[in-house]
């Protein structure tokens, strides 16, 4: 027992600095939003349209409801484990070694998603802006931006995400501009395709909303009561739903059902069509701003992966693991980013794992926690 205590001591110390940082609810709000909104924006309408036809927006709402339900379950867990983040909970609830194993898998998953973000972003850039620029340059740029951001710890992350959220305004305004040419007939009749495609569409919708698992890590740092925090969590989901609905509606009503299947990046094609007397090609500016959102998503995943690894190995230093994980992401990105087919397969697999790591595992955590609740909380107090 004494031995175990000694082992536990440095861990609680190295996380003390992390757990002692306080972030406001507003920063929490933007941290979640910037994590969830990312690469998906550009191709979301296309993906929804492929499966659910013009009823894609119903799927999106359904997906958001599911995510909100999962987040409510998260909250039930987090409420009972104050001052404990995901990786601590894993070890505490599942036991030391199974917990460490789960942490490792989480890290691998996070970094795989990070690599996927790199791949998808490079693909868009290579298609739309810089056709001949090598992938590794673009990826290195994003990875170094992410590392630089992380080197300032969670507080800087929170501040920077809040600052960058101002840029979302540009995205929103350019999308609202698109509504001008909306043709609402395109989304009628509602429910034409039937229930099944809509349910299938929910799958696509949930995938675009992934990233909310970040809540499990930063929740203990947020100021305020549990109820206030829960409210903030719901606000983030409503904001994201609203933003995505704007994306989906503006493109669905602009292109129409058949046309949208021809354009894999409907948002960009829509913006490309507009002409102003001062500038043309709004899509290029949209991509420029969108890159910031992608960087924040990538940074979060990199951060979570590095954080997990650090926790698993009980180390006091953070940056070496972040750099290591960045290297892994870069390698994965360059390996799997070489062909359309490969990208598709890789993306499918990684996204599927999202259900396991964002849904199944945390819920399992909650169930086991509730089953062992007395035992766990009892041991704490002694």
């Amino acid at each position, binding site marked *: 027992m004494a031995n175990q205590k000694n082992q536990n001591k440095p861990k609680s110390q190295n996380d003390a600095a992390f757990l002692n940082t306080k972030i406001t609810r507003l920063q929490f709000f933007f941290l979640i939003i910037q994590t969830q909104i990312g690469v998906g924006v550009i191709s979301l309408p296309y993906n929804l349209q492929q499966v659910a036809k013009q009823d894609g927006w119903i799927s999106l709402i359904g997906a958001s409801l599911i995510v909100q339900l999962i987040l409510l379950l998260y909250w039930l867990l987090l409420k009972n484990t104050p001052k404990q983040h995901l990786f601590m909970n894993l070890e505490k609830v599942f036991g030391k070694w199974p917990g460490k194993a789960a942490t490792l898998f989480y890290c691998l998953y996070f970094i795989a998603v990070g690599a996927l973000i790199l791949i998808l972003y490079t693909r868009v850039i290579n298609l739309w802006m810089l056709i001949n620029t090598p992938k590794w340059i673009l990826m290195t740029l994003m990875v170094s931006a992410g590392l630089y951001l992380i080197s300032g710890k969670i507080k800087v992350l929170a501040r920077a995400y809040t600052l960058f959220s101002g840029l979302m305004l540009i995205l929103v305004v350019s999308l609202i501009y698109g509504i001008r040419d909306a043709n609402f007939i395109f989304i009628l009749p509602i429910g034409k395709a039937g229930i099944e495609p809509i349910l299938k569409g929910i799958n696509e919708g949930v995938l675009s909303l992934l990233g909310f698992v970040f809540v499990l890590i930063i929740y203990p740092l947020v100021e305020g009561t549990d109820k206030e925090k829960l409210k903030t969590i719901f606000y983030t989901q409503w904001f994201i739903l609203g933003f995505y609905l704007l994306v989906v509606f503006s493109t669905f009503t602009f292109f129409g059902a058949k046309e949208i299947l021809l354009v894999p990046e409907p948002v960009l094609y829509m913006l490309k069509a507009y002409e102003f007397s001062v*500038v043309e090609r709004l899509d290029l500016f949209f991509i420029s701003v969108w890159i910031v959102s992608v960087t924040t998503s990538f940074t979060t995943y990199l951060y979570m992966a590095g954080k997990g690894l650090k926790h698993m190995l009980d180390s006091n230093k953070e940056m070496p693991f972040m750099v290591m994980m960045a290297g892994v992401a870069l390698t994965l990105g360059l390996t799997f980013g070489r062909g359309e087919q490969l990208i598709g397969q890789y993306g499918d697999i990684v996204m599927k794992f999202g259900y396991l790591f964002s849904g199944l595992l945390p819920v399992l955590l909650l169930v086991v926690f509730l089953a062992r609740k007395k035992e766990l909380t009892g041991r704490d107090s002694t």
Partner: protein
Amino acid sequence: MGYRRRKSKQDKLIEEQPGNEADVKEPEQPSYSQLSRNIEYLTKALKHSNDLKIRILNEGQAALLFFETLSDQEKLQENIFTPIENGKFDSISKLPNGKQTDDLEEALKVLLRGHALYIEEGSKSLAYFSVTTTYNRSVEEPENEKVVRGSHEGFVENIMININLVRKRLEHRDLTIKYFRVGKKTNTNIAIAYMDGITNPELVKEVEKRIKSVTADTILSPGFMEEFIEDNPMSPFPQTLSTERPDRVIANIMSGKVALMAEGSPTVLILPSTFFMFYQSPDDYNARWVSGTFIRLIRLMSFLIAIGLPAMYIAIIGFHFEVIPDDLVPPVKSAIDQIAYPPFVEAFIMVIIIELIREAGIRLPQPVGQTIGIVGGLVIGDAVIRAGLISNLMVIVVALTAIASFVVPSHELSTTLRLLTFPLIILASTLGFIGIVFGILFILIHLVKLESFGNPYFAPVSPLRIQDLKDTFVRIPLFKLDTRPKDANPIKEQSMGESREWKRNGKSKKSKQTKKSK
């Protein structure tokens, strides 16, 4: 006269503060009772310097030592000899304006401070008198911080006069001045000023700690101090605001910041500083608030132009020509078609030319400087276009950038901005918009990470403090600025009570009541 009185007070203060040179044990040398041994010790310690004058008095029974280069002959006469001649006192050592010591090391110090030292045969006690001479420039408007309306006074090289300028404007007992000595050899006098009861004591403690930890031999100006005490010396951004204007210093002291002054320099450092403080000018508060806001917005826009415009232009010309609307394509194309160099080289040449002209203009006397400006700006600019080396659009872009960088009311930040243009130009010419986005992303992340004395540098934008935005991008009416900005974590936030209640009198009693109940 007023200054001198304060000077002696200052000496007392410094002697009373053991913390100043606490690390090194003060060498002590008790004085001898023989006059000759005392003089021998002192002259040897001062390396027989030629400007040390020894006046033998009382037929060799006493001596008066002073540096003729540091002491004022008139004061010597007035303070020491006139009272004796008047017959009120029989001995110089009994004069009431003298101070006593029996430590030769201390005697050395006061000699170097410009005092006159009186030694008597057979007495161990040494008397010294303040006869320091100072040569001062008059209080003039600082060249680099001119304002249209408001005070035209500026700091000078004498720290006593500078503190006087501050005290005159801030007649309150809470204004606290603390002296320090830094520079092992230069022994520079440094003072910090802050408002007790407004400024966060933690901040004052931190400033004191950092000042005391400086162990350099030479501290010539606040510029030296700046690099020793700032949080991140690697950053291109200045983290302490330097100003030569008393009104600016007062405004900052009143918002809970600490001012650092140094003997021998008119520049005062404000600690901590935020990025947006560099964009505030006293003019904003002298003008009406609407015009103040307008000018401030123009200034902040100049930040974007200064760092981003050439990069943007190069990216568009080099990568994203499709961004230019159809009607503008022919003129742009005809302008850049005949140019032999890529836009990157063009921009580089032009930026370097402007920097050369600027640097040459600063050092030269004003009439010549103007000629350089005209020759450089007009003649070279025109010739370079006619020769087909650089497109006329590039000249417009770079000139506009240079002007925008000069709009910042702070010289340091202006240089920083022009420096940041280069990496952005390089990024834009290699990666187009993507390069610019990442470049700006890096700059923003850096700004967010940066801290000045533990306070976030990019506040109140990041971390977002909506309350403080009222004096950042805009300048709302002064009577609405009723809370101090949280930049320096002041312990007293309220900065005014109700000031315009006469406006509301009789109109609505309700609001007044609710105010009262609060």
